């Protein structure tokens, strides 16, 4: 492990903040990650020296901004190994990317009686849009369950797949269980059944492999803010053929070719799907984040995160009455748990008084909670800057809280 975490931590200004007088221990990375200095500087630099509207401008600032914006598209293309830059569409985030596909794919390819498949372990953002689309299009909403360890029931999935299946949507990594789904296999099975696949990569693109061509994903969505980039920017990758085949989602400037009262024709991807002035600075900040990652060795990042995860698991299990949720074969970055007789909300709130930031509740995955028959969990989630010290701080704080609660 060549990765120098102290050096990395120094790149993230917020990590040296005090919270309630205690050093911040930030373990809420699945909700959003912190930003390294180059990202913040890229944003400031944009607004201070070349802010302008893009694409149609003919002046200097507009050229600079357009170039930076389109260079960012290429940086992202390379990071996910897409074949073409125009297969990278900018959205507000994963949620919007999925809504776009649910709408546009639905309009073109989903008809009454067709099937759409998601999983019980999907985030509401990869669940509700498909439910809404199925309702609008008269299609059947099918859901693949997971087993007691948090592994997808591939046998049930196989049975659900059929000639009526139009599209399968699933998360590569579960934000509540940490399960790494066997994405290649899930995709292959869908393709064998003639269905398209959307991969929700919100929790995977920053932690594990993220090669859309190796996965053979038809659509692939993620959020900038979860991969050390700015808020309000996300990516939808789509295979060129699919992007050509589905209709646009929103109408407006940028996405048109010709507009008249009688007839409007649309631009080519990616612009066809980017109506209106985009979040111009978003991709620029996101590319700065990805450049930052590219400056490290991704295998080292994975190894470091994995070692902290394993350490966290074993330290947490030392605590009496603590249950960990998510024991899938392959896991990453998530430590979700409850302690007997302690409400997750109380534990999370009280951990905060010790400077430890975790998330509590259903984590936008109520179907998981329903399946596990719980209301919620405490979730500590890791990023590349977390260390064993963070885990030690978490465990020490939990012990203090339990003591205060008289346990």
């Amino acid at each position, binding site marked *: 492990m060549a990765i120098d975490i102290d050096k990395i931590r120094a790149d993230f200004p917020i990590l040296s903040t005090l919270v309630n007088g205690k050093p911040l221990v930030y373990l809420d990375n699945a909700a959003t990650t912190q930003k390294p200095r180059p990202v913040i500087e890229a944003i400031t630099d944009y607004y201070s020296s070349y802010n302008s509207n893009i694409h149609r401008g003919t002046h200097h600032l507009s050229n600079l901004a357009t170039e930076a914006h389109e260079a960012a598209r290429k940086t992202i293309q390379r990071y996910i190994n897409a074949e073409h830059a125009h297969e990278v569409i900018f959205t507000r985030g994963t949620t919007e990317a999925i809504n776009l596909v649910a709408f546009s794919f639905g309009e073109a390819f989903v008809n009454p009686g067709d099937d759409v498949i998601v999983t019980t372990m999907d985030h509401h953002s990869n669940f509700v849009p498909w439910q809404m689309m199925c309702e609008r299009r008269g299609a059947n909403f099918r859901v693949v369950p997971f087993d007691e360890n948090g592994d997808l029931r591939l046998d049930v999935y196989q049975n659900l797949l059929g000639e009526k299946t139009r599209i399968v949507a699933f998360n590569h990594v579960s934000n509540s269980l940490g399960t790494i789904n066997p994405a290649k296999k899930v995709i292959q099975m869908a393709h064998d059944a003639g269905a398209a696949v959307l991969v929700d990569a919100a929790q995977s693109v920053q932690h594990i492999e993220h090669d859309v061509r190796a996965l053979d994903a038809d659509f692939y969505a993620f959020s900038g803010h979860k991969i050390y980039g700015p808020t309000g920017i996300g990516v939808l990758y789509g295979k060129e053929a699919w992007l050509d085949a589905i209709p646009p989602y929103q109408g407006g400037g940028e996405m048109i070719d010709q507009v008249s009262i009688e007839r409007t024709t649309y631009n080519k991807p990616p612009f066809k799907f980017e109506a209106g002035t985009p979040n111009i600075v978003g991709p620029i900040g996101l590319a700065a984040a990805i450049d930052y990652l590219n400056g490290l060795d991704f295998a080292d990042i994975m190894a470091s995160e994995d070692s902290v995860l394993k350490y966290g698991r074993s330290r947490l299990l030392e605590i009496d009455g603590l249950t960990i949720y998510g024991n899938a074969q392959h896991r990453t970055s998530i430590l979700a748990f409850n302690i007997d007789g302690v*409400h*997750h*909300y*109380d534990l999370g709130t009280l951990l905060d008084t010790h400077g430890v930031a975790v998330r509590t*509740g259903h984590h936008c995955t109520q179907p998981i909670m329903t399946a596990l028959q719980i209301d919620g969990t405490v979730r500590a989630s890791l990023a590349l800057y977390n260390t064993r010290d963070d885990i030690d701080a978490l465990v020490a704080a939990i012990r203090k809280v339990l003591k*205060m*609660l008289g346990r």
Partner: protein
Amino acid sequence: MASIQEIQGQIVDDFSFLPAWDERYAYLIELGQKNTLLPEEYRTEDNIVRGCQSLVWLHKECRQGEVFLQADSDSLIVKGLAALLLQVFSGQPAEAVIKADLTFFKEIGLDKHLSSQRANGLLAMVEEIKAFAAQCVGGAA
């Protein structure tokens, strides 16, 4: 009975003796455990106030234009918050409840910790109590 304003002042005084956050929470939890209790019959669907993360049952009665409240929650902290609301509002004239400005949360610093969140359902409880009071005015409800 003391007025809403007086009670809020009393709460602020009580908390002012506790400078550290963990002490404040310990006190809040203690308050909750002492002052919330809801007979099983009132733990109905209808009485549930939804925060995102915790369940609160809030039972409201209107007697001669006064609002009476009982509450419970599965979360100790939310129990404590509910207890504070009961202390402030229960037994007060509906008119006064409607007009009340909840300043004490801010004064004891709990607003920073709690009130902007949707997680704990505190705002939802306050809204529900005020809406109930509006029906109760003059003993109508």
